[in-house]
């Protein structure tokens, strides 16, 4: 979004905000300032900045005047939220600009909560304001960083609602809170607080992130690239869903990740097996978790014709396995992944497991050599065993328009286990990223020389086959 009004709400990194504010005000970065030496109620060290005698505003020893002030603004609210109306006094450190607005907000809350004696609360506005400010910096580590605009807005709103009826604040969150209070729905608010306490101040951050994410998704305020890659959806929703499979179900171990370049373009070439293309998803996730790079998959056109699957594939950054798209991705320095066996590899019978099929027509080598990027042969062991294909019902496949129709052992368990039977088997996976094969040394005319092209295709295939054999010899059993 280029619209400033929208982008403003998307800035969630508090560190960034803090750094920007420090840069503006010219004050030293946060890390350098001394912290308060006192300990908080929970026994942890106070994380506020020290302002006097090595103590923060909250922990500065209070005098009798402070005590009086506190007793005066004693709570008339329900015990669960009593703390909200009571604030330690920090007279020595007035905080005019921000405190005014915050206290206004506080007073208005008390008002909205149906607190008749709002005069007392407004009277203590000065105190509550500065106290609230310090509190925010300490407890959440986040709270103190609201933009000035937000505070201003609150102040305006508060001053209005302090005099007007609470109905004016309809639709706002504070109003909802007040309603909850009035009707005694303390459980809802307490639940929220309990949750927050359970996760400490990280909860706030997480909640902020979640709310921002939901807002962006619902209002469409996100960006996709020309290929339709929706990075936010992929990394925040789809990959976390897949990660348990990667970590706990198939317990993927991988080696040779150093062969995957950190910046430049490269073509990842891997074997394909297992009836369903789970190996493509898992390899992609593995590469992302280890290097932070997205391997852009090249898929068969059937993928993009299939409802739901095709749309999801585009959103995760996959694109059609055509020269045009691959050239474009590699030219922009992306990491591209391709499974040249295609459906022949996926749908091969159990007896042919770990026997590489024909590597297409070598188009991937031509693509890599045109872009002058290395080919990284990748071997995935374990994917063959997730759905061992006993037969291929060709007639059914032809009728349905599928490339193959597998009969897997799990199907025999269907009457007993129901749909759970169709889960993939939990084989142990090993992924190896092999020594890169340099295509630049062949020159760019490799694409025009079929013999050299086939030679190199065979070389890649041979290397992956060797890596497969090596890893197969190395594993203890299929499932452990």
């Amino acid at each position, binding site marked *: 979004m280029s619209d400033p009004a929208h982008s403003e709400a998307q800035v969630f990194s508090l560190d960034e905000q803090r750094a920007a504010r420090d840069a503006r005000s010219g004050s030293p970065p946060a890390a350098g300032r001394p912290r308060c030496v006192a300990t908080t109620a929970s026994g942890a060290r106070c994380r506020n900045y020290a302002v006097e005698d090595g103590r923060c505003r909250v922990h500065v020893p209070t005098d009798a005047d402070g005590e009086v002030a506190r007793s005066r603004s004693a709570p008339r609210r329900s015990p669960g*939220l009593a703390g909200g109306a009571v604030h330690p006094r920090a007279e020595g450190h007035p905080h005019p600009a921000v405190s005014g607005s915050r206290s206004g907000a506080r007073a208005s809350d008390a008002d909205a909560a149906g607190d008749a004696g709002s005069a007392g609360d407004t009277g203590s506005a000065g105190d509550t304001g500065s106290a609230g400010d310090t509190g925010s910096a300490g407890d959440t580590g986040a709270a103190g960083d609201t933009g000035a605009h937000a505070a201003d807005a609150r102040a305006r709103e508060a001053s209005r609602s302090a005099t007007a009826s609470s109905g004016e604040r309809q639709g706002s969150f504070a109003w909802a809170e007040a309603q909850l209070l009035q009707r005694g729905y303390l459980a809802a608010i307490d639940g929220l607080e309990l949750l927050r306490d359970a996760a400490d101040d990280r909860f706030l951050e997480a909640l902020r992130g979640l709310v921002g994410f939901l807002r962006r998704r619902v209002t469409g305020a996100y960006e996709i690239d020309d290929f339709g890659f929706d990075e936010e959806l992929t990394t925040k929703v789809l990959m976390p869903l897949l990660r348990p499979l990667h970590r706990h179900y198939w317990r993927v171990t991988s080696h040779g990740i150093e062969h995957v370049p950190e910046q430049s373009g490269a073509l990842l070439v891997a074997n394909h097996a297992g009836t369903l293309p789970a190996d493509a998803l898992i390899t992609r996730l593995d590469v992302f978790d280890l290097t932070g790079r997205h391997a852009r998959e090249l898929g068969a056109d059937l993928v993009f014709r299939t409802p739901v699957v095709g749309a999801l594939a585009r959103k995760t950054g996959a694109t059609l396995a055509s020269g045009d798209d691959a050239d474009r991705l590699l030219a922009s320095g992306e990491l591209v992944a391709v499974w040249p066996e295609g459906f022949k590899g996926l749908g091969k019978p159990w007896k042919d497991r770990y026997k590489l099929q024909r590597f297409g027509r070598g188009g991937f080598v031509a693509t890599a050599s045109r872009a002058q990027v290395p080919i990284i042969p990748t071997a995935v062991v374990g994917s063959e065993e997730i759905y061992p294909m006993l037969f291929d019902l060709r007639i059914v496949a032809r009728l349905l328009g599928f490339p193959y129709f597998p009969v897997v052992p799990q199907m025999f368990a269907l009457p007993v286990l129901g749909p759970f039977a169709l889960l993939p088997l939990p084989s142990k996976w090993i992924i190896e990223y092999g020594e890169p094969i340099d295509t630049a040394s062949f020159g760019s005319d490799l694409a025009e020389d079929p013999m050299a092209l086939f030679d190199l295709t065979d070389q890649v295939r041979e290397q992956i086959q060797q890596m497969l054999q090596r890893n197969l010899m190395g594993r203890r059993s299929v499932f452990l």
Partner: protein
Amino acid sequence: MVEGRRVLLTGVAGQFGGLVARALEQRDDVLEIVGIDVREPQHELRRTEFVRADLRNPLVGRVLEAAAIDTVLHLSITSQPGAAGGRTSMKEHNVIGTMQLMAACQAAPRLERVVLKSTGAVYGSAHTDPALFSESSTPRIPPRTGFGKDASEAEGYVRTLGRRRRDVAVTVLRLANLVGPQVDSAFQSFFALPVLPTVAGFDPRLQFCHEEDAVGAHVHAATAATEGTVNVAGAGALYLSQAIRLAGRVPVPVPLPFVSALATALRRSGRADVAPDQLRMLQFGRVMDTTRLREEFGYTPAYTTHTAFDDFLERRRIRGMIDRDDAVRLERELYDFLQRKGQERFLESQRAVQEGRP
């Protein structure tokens, strides 16, 4: 004599033709503008001369001759069969009209430049499509009917003219779906529907071109020395689902077998003039590469696809169920609320410590 172009516009009565005519009127290097259409233009035109004629009329040739036209902007290829009076007359106008116009152009000795407003629909829309169409890519499944077919045939006639008259520079502008405050398009009427039908399981990538950019590209083509085929669109893409969310509308996924029946019903009821060939757009979408537009053609669009669509929503006042500003405000209020809760909690704990309570 002052240097400048003498321009003939077809389709000047259309909204887009009118915009181009007015943009050309602003230019000092355009001496004369002649507009041709079968209808009278409804919009204000200042120095454009209007000739009411069908493109198939021999009068066009005489106008070319008499006004000493050196630049022809052919803008009248239409995509909406409803507005053209049925598919048959739409094709008659698009294809045969272009053929006749090009024949007249070939006979015009002073002609130097021909610009055709074509469309991205010539690339078709299929699952075998590359992610981005460049000008040189050929469609895997070429459009067999409708607008896309008309446009590719018209492009053929224009290119033939370029081949026969080597002294005429031919520019073909392939436009993405137009969006903007003034020009009506199939997508505009689509987004005006109360709920938006989509094809279940498909989420096409769409690309838009803001009408200002489309006008700018045509003016640039008419006045600067350009040649060749150029894609005109805002950079980037939007998913249909994303566009629907931006518009705050509610999508209604329709299973594929029922989509064309629904489109027919909508067309009959006059709510949306969506031609059958445009339905494939709702399934697979289309995105074009605009590198040549910026680098070779020399026109940089002011809007990306995203900002063009935003502008379209704003200017057309398309407001959905969920307002984006409301969402941002609500989010901020939630933050503030949580923040205050955090402060209250903290202060309570402080008070407990200071009062010596456990």
